[in-house]
């Protein structure tokens, strides 16, 4: 039965079929980094609106596996959050 199902999936499909609920979405688990790219926001210790998005309720820094920030930008985020903590913003 499984082989028959595989053959059925390989057939050229109508693009409208992808809208169905039973289709597995590929983009759900591989997310892009929200802080890199051309129109990315500036990471700065004065930009409090952005920094507060990456902090938990108890003022801890969120891990990158949850927020899907790239490793280079995560390093910058932690240093800017710590600067904001010195000035008493967070």
């Amino acid at each position, binding site marked *: 039965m499984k082989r028959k199902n595989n053959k059925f999936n390989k057939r050229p499909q109508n693009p409208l079929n992808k809208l169905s609920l039973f289709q597995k979405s590929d983009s759900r688990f591989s997310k892009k980094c929200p802080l890199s790219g051309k129109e990315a926001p*500036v990471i*700065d*210790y004065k*930009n*409090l609106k952005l920094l507060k998005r990456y902090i938990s309720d108890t003022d801890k820094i969120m891990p990158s596996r949850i927020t899907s920030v790239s490793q280079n930008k995560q390093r910058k985020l932690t240093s800017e959050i710590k600067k904001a903590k010195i*000035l*008493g*913003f967070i």
Partner: protein
Amino acid sequence: MNFYEHTLIAKQDLSSPELETIEKKYKDIITKTEGKVIKIEKWGLLNFAKKIKAYNKGFYIHYKFQAENKTLEEIKKNSIIDNSLLRHLTIKYKKLDTETEYFKEINEKKK
């Protein structure tokens, strides 16, 4: 000559002429040691997230300037002794962004 940003936190119970003398004092320190003041921003009274030395609020003053290493030592010496300050922070930049003011919106909402 490098670009720097410096922020001060002054105590809550200071009067407005006292705040102006603090602002002038650190401006003079930068200009006396051959530095250039590019911009001064007053962020006003802001709430802290946690208490700092039993204070809940503080006045913020923000400098953007261009200077050598010796001015930084002078600023650090003076601000450690200063009783009217709570905290201070200097940060080095390759390029200074003088246009965007992040604390303008917060102060306008209060009014």
